[in-house]
């Protein structure tokens, strides 16, 4: 009754081709944005901003980047954390080495540097695919982190490559409090997410999906494989790079290369599996799930331990966390291989017919 597209007639091409063609979707997005920009800052506490909301947005952005590459273009990558590291270190160096560089520009330059590195490590994708490619992207993961640790110039000669990011100043305004940082991250993420949403339905996005579904067939119908695949690597790495810069500047403030470990790459991969491979919204849902799960288990496990009188040490709790993590991933793949985004899709289809399904 509420969610129904019947009666929404499109009379212009512009109306037919807009990003959210259904009116309820448009209203929903506007309400969501209003809540995120106005509602949340009014009610959330400082802890929520700095420990949950900011990392959520940053990881959602990184997951979005990986989703473009893996979900849309079908190239499996296990090196997303390394591209985040490139973004973070490049943004830091642009700030450091160029006098008066606006911070947003250095974020973008960080993203562009990551894109360049991404294209370089994406070159093997022209010859190899599938698991071979996944292993090849591991080369990026290990090599980049090693480079950042061993070349002191990249971290301004600090020991073991730790960098402390510069002050966030945009148009003379200092971003110090968690709320301000949250709003900054949110604005960047919203812009990039909408751009991605727009991109994947353009001819580029369609070419990616054709390559994903079968690259030989795609090349037969006239899609040039090399530019398409490399563009996917570039844009995906750009998103990861910007996410990395935000991770360093707005979340932690001080990062080391080893922080961008293989484990983090896997975490981002899990986000898109659980959220939904090949879905923009899935990246957000997955990031929320993966970030909230450990917090949830942290609260829940001691409670259960007390309930059943089990002696849980903190080591056991962390083991159970890993175990539940793994079990959930297998569970999701078995029950809903298309992730949380698919559940949302099903809910929408049900809503369309509700309350008269027959």
């Amino acid at each position, binding site marked *: 009754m509420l969610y129904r597209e019947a009666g929404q007639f499109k009379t212009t091409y512009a109306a037919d081709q807009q990003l959210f063609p259904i009116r309820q979707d448009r209203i929903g997005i506007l309400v969501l944005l209003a809540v995120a920009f106005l509602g949340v800052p009014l009610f959330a506490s400082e802890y929520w901003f700095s420990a949950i909301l900011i990392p959520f947005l940053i990881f959602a952005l990184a997951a979005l980047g990986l989703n473009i590459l893996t979900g849309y273009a079908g190239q499996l990558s296990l090196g997303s954390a390394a591209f985040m590291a490139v973004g973070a270190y490049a943004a830091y160096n642009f700030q450091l080495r160029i006098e008066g560089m606006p911070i947003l520009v250095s974020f973008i330059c960080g993203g562009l540097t990551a894109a360049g590195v991404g294209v370089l490590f994406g070159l093997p994708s022209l010859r190899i695919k599938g698991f071979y490619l996944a*292993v090849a992207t591991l080369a990026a993961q290990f090599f980049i982190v090693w480079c950042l640790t061993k070349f002191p110039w990249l971290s301004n000669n600090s020991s073991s490559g730790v960098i402390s990011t510069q002050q966030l100043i945009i148009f003379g305004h200092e971003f110090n409090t968690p709320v301000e940082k949250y709003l900054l991250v949110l604005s960047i993420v919203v812009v990039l997410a909408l751009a991605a949403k727009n991109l994947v339905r353009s001819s580029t996005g369609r070419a990616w999906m054709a390559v994903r579904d079968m690259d030989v067939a795609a090349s037969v119908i006239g899609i040039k494989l090399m530019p398409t695949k490399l563009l996917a690597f570039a844009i995906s790495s750009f998103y990861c790079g910007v996410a990395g810069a935000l991770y360093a500047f707005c979340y932690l403030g001080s990062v080391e290369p080893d922080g961008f470990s293989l484990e983090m790459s896997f975490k981002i991969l899990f986000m898109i599996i659980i959220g939904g491979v090949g879905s923009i919204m899935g990246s957000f849902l997955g990031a929320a799930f993966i970030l909230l799960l450990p917090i949830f288990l942290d609260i829940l496990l001691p409670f259960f331990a007390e309930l059943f009188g089990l002696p849980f040490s903190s080591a056991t709790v962390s083991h159970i966390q890993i175990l539940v993590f793994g079990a959930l991933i297998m569970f999701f793949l078995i029950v809903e291989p298309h992730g949380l985004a698919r559940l949302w899709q099903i809910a929408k289809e049900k809503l369309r017919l509700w309350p008269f399904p027959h």
Partner: protein
Amino acid sequence: MNFFFEVLIGGLLSGVMYALVALGFVMIYKASGVFNFAQGAMVYLAALSVVGCMEKGAPLWLAIILAFAIMTAFGIATEKFVLRKLVNQPPIALFMATIGLAFFIEGLAPMIFGSEPRALDIGIVDEPIAWFLDEWNMVISKFDLVAAAVASVLVATLALFFQYTRVGRALRAVADDHQAALSIGIPLQNIWAIVWGVAGFVALVAGMMWGARNGVQFALTFTALKALPVLILGGFTSVPGAIVGGLIIGASEKLAEIYIPPVMQDLFGGNFGGIEGWFPYVLALLFLLVRPEGLFGEKHIDRV
């Protein structure tokens, strides 16, 4: 020159250890087309089971049998509860499921057997062989040599098993074509259970070798990361490929670690150790650009 050969032989022998882990990957990939990322975690589980059983007072031989039983049971359970439900899913989904499986094991194993690093004594000492030291002035570990022997025996056994037994023939048939194998009456799911059992056995051997060498600890799961470049170099489907790939990776990585950092130091200054971490991957990557299917892999022909 002596030093060069010492490094080379040391590298080749450590390459054998990588090949041990890579073998487990090849087994499962060959028979079921699943890229089993959990192989490293299985190595960890196997080594922990041996140590855990020995701590409970079991002698070594009993501990090995018990660990083998655990690995087999685990493999069958994996097949029954995870992979069977994922039949007909794309290979990527299966791969991701095995990553989940790896996490599951990494949480479960230390919960049962404890997570503190322990030594595993299987009766071989890690000391240089006197003869090499006297005659050639080279340090070559006895342990590495034993590991190499074990690996050769294992490979020979597996090769015979694949070639001459009834089950082995069935395994090859399944690897060739699932549907054709099914249509002539080969029970696919039993075969998969067997494959996982054999992979568990390979993991057990690898786990004992690595555990005796470096101690039984969480770092054992990283052996999988060492085996991946070996795999892509040798080809996912080839048992000899895993061995040759292991030898190449082991030797080149040790040589690179010795000879590249000084050169880079001259060029850029600073300390460039730790090349071992990424060199195998870059080597494998460069190799893939020339031969995308690996040394002994099957050539992949695309059809629309």
